[in-house]
């Protein structure tokens, strides 16, 4: 009987806890020093650092994706002399692992530090989907730097994502542009798709399928894998029966490399062009796919100098000087802009008292971020709308020319093949 009561009690407690966790945290207005804010105020004593968080993929097969962005953000801090509002910057970086569990853990660690005023990142939509709400629940807005899933900035997004904005394009633009390229430029009338269940890949694929059908094309196969799948041969054999003109799989390095390796072995795939997505612009992909990567194409935002802002070549120079190599992925400029937007917003809302202490209102900071307009960013103009979309999209297609990871250099391997 005692056990029964205990179980009942546990069930009730767990249910209440679950209900409580889904409700927006009731945050009362707070006044500290000269600042009153609806959800809280962070006080930074004179001379103490302002804490900023970051979370990107810095381990595993997609390390280049996150590391490149961390570097972009660090270069932005260098350009601010590592100071904001008269305080030194203390930068905390966590590993998002490019998955939901990693995003949740990283965001929870950052949220536990109540001195953090803003977080830059993450890089993967699967990490941002749970991470953004965790941070915003703690009153910390986040500026994502390569999460492109439409759901993150949709008008009907959950309350938890109201503190989430991004200095990267929305896949509503990217998916449509991909489909238009397949239909109009490649003259393909049939398409097969593969996603890996991640918010980024699944939503991008759905947008591309929708646009492809609108144009008059037919989606002959819509498949899915898991990121850890290694045996793609049965999947590709199934797709080959539908004889698609193009197979589009905007997934991550490990599984994509297996598709690229194994597609050549499948009978019936000879006439199908296989095309990946922007996560594959990394030396790690060449390491994983080897020589089968030669001639492989993927769609990506245009990463050539003329597609970026005027200051991009200068940033690349700093990148090479600081890290001893050329950029290792395509989103460092977006990360630079993400950090720049965050620093400008902090400067805008920071208020000093007579003793030299600084006060930052959390809601005010969020509003200042969303109010960013006409900033001439490294990756292009940054103007945020009310849902958190701040950047436009310039479409390009790239092709690998060599399977040796040492030869990776954006512009030559992979080289841009469209637009010419």
């Amino acid at each position, binding site marked *: 009987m005692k056990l029964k009561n205990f179980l009942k009690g546990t069930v009730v407690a767990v249910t209440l806890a679950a209900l409580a966790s889904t409700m927006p945290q009731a945050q009362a207005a707070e006044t500290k020093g000269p600042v009153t804010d609806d959800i809280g105020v962070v006080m930074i004593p004179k001379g103490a650092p302002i804490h900023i968080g970051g979370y990107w993929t810095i381990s595993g*097969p997609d390390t280049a994706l996150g590391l490149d962005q961390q570097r972009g953000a660090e270069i932005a801090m260098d350009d601010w002399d590592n100071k904001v509002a008269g305080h030194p910057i203390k930068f905390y970086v966590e590993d998002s692992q490019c998955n939901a569990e990693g995003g949740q853990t990283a965001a929870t660690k950052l949220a536990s530090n109540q001195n953090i005023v803003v977080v830059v990142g993450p890089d993967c939509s699967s990490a941002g989907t749970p991470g953004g709400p965790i941070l915003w629940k703690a009153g910390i807005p986040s500026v994502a730097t390569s999460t492109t899933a439409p759901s993150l900035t949709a008008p009907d997004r959950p309350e938890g994502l109201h503190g989430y904005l991004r200095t990267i394009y929305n896949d509503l633009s990217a998916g449509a542009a991909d489909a238009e390229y397949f239909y109009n430029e490649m003259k393909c009338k049939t398409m097969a798709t593969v996603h890996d269940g991640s918010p980024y890949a699944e939503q991008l694929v759905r947008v591309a399928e929708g646009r492809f059908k609108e144009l008059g094309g037919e989606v002959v196969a819509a498949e899915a894998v898991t990121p850890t799948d290694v*045996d793609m041969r049965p999947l590709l054999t199934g797709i080959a029966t539908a004889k698609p003109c193009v197979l589009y799989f905007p997934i991550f390095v490990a599984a994509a490399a297996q598709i690229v390796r194994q597609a050549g072995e499948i009978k019936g795939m000879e006439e199908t062009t296989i095309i990946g997505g922007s996560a594959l612009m990394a030396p*790690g992909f060449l390491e994983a796919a080897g020589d089968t990567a030669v001639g492989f194409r993927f769609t990506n935002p245009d990463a050539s100098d003329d597609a970026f802002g005027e200051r991009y070549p200068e940033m690349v120079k700093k990148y090479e000087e600081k890290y001893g190599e050329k950029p290792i992925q395509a989103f460092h400029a977006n990360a630079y802009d993400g950090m720049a937007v965050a620093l400008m917003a902090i400067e805008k809302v920071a208020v000093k008292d007579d003793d030299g202490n600084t006060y930052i209102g959390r809601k005010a900071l969020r509003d200042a971020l969303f109010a960013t307009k006409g900033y001439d960013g490294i990756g292009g103009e940054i103007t945020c709308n009310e849902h958190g979309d701040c950047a436009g999209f310039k479409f390009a297609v790239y092709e690998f020319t060599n399977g040796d990871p040492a030869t990776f250099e954006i512009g030559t391997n992979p080289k841009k093949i469209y637009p010419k």
Partner: protein
Amino acid sequence: MTATATEAKANGLGDRLKDLKRISFVDIILWSLRILVLVVVVFGTIGTIIKDKYSAEQWFDFFMFGLTIGGIYALIALGYTMVYGILRLINFAHGDITMTGAFSAYFLARGLDRSGFLDANPIMSMILIMGLAMIVCSCIALAVERICYRPFRHVATLAPLICAIGASFFLQHSFRGMYGSTIRAYPDPEWMKGQVDVLGFQVPVYQLIVIAIALAAMLFLYLIVQKTKMGTAMRAVSEDRDAASMMGIDVNKVILFTFILGGCMAGIGGVLYCMVYKQIYFYMGFLPGVKAFSAAVLGGIGNIPGAMLGGFFLGVVESVGPALWLDGFGITAPYQMRDLIAFTMLVMVLIFRPQGLLGERLASKRA
């Protein structure tokens, strides 16, 4: 109606209700599950046949893909089943021991590839690569046994199991620390790229090599266990460790030998995995390890031919199942449900035959 007739009818109804009460909720669930799976299999297969989407050649390809991965599962499963047979212990680190073999194979193969030796001397290269992988896996398996399992050998708790999981994490993260978390590509020599004609179907050479090596290794292992003195001792220890000890068998030696044999099979499995999937990274042993463990359970854990059969069965079901059973229903993205199908089959086999495909019913002392 008389009072007696009413009473008799009430009694009859009561008996029937009692009979119904004997059918538990679990029985209903199990029977529903069996019927559901049967319906899916039968109607799915009929639907797929009617659709006629795949050619005979493609069905043959599916089967060969399944045999290839199945052979690798089977080799890894042998390590699980032998250790379980001797120690009644699930060596959860075994998948990661396979990973260590794959890493050592990669480093040697890369060196041989760069020097041109791998292309020029395929057989000698394979012997060297497999030899190294077997030695590394055996050494690590022995170290795991000595450090993690032996101290708990006579302790009837969950400690060895927890230790096995700890060893698994230790191996993964040691390799991550030593070699990083990026994916490395196993070399792709020219002699593995061709195709050969089998029964009128074109089959990639590497598939035949992998299946042949897997079968040869399993045959070799089977002969060791059935025909040698040490194999007899292994079977005796597996039957009753105390009695075997009293008969003069050095149980400790037998256990070490079992770990070496399991390590060798893991080493070969690791090399074959590299040959087929080409990607090497620290976490690569986990999933094949879980699948191989399932294969061992499917075949009847503790039973060596059972592990082999279980491995091939699981591989073929994973490969053929989505196309054969789900395509017929017009299900979108059937391959995403590959693991679901494989593990549903595992559950079904265990519902019908709890001891596994070739397993014997264990006496309470052994179980």
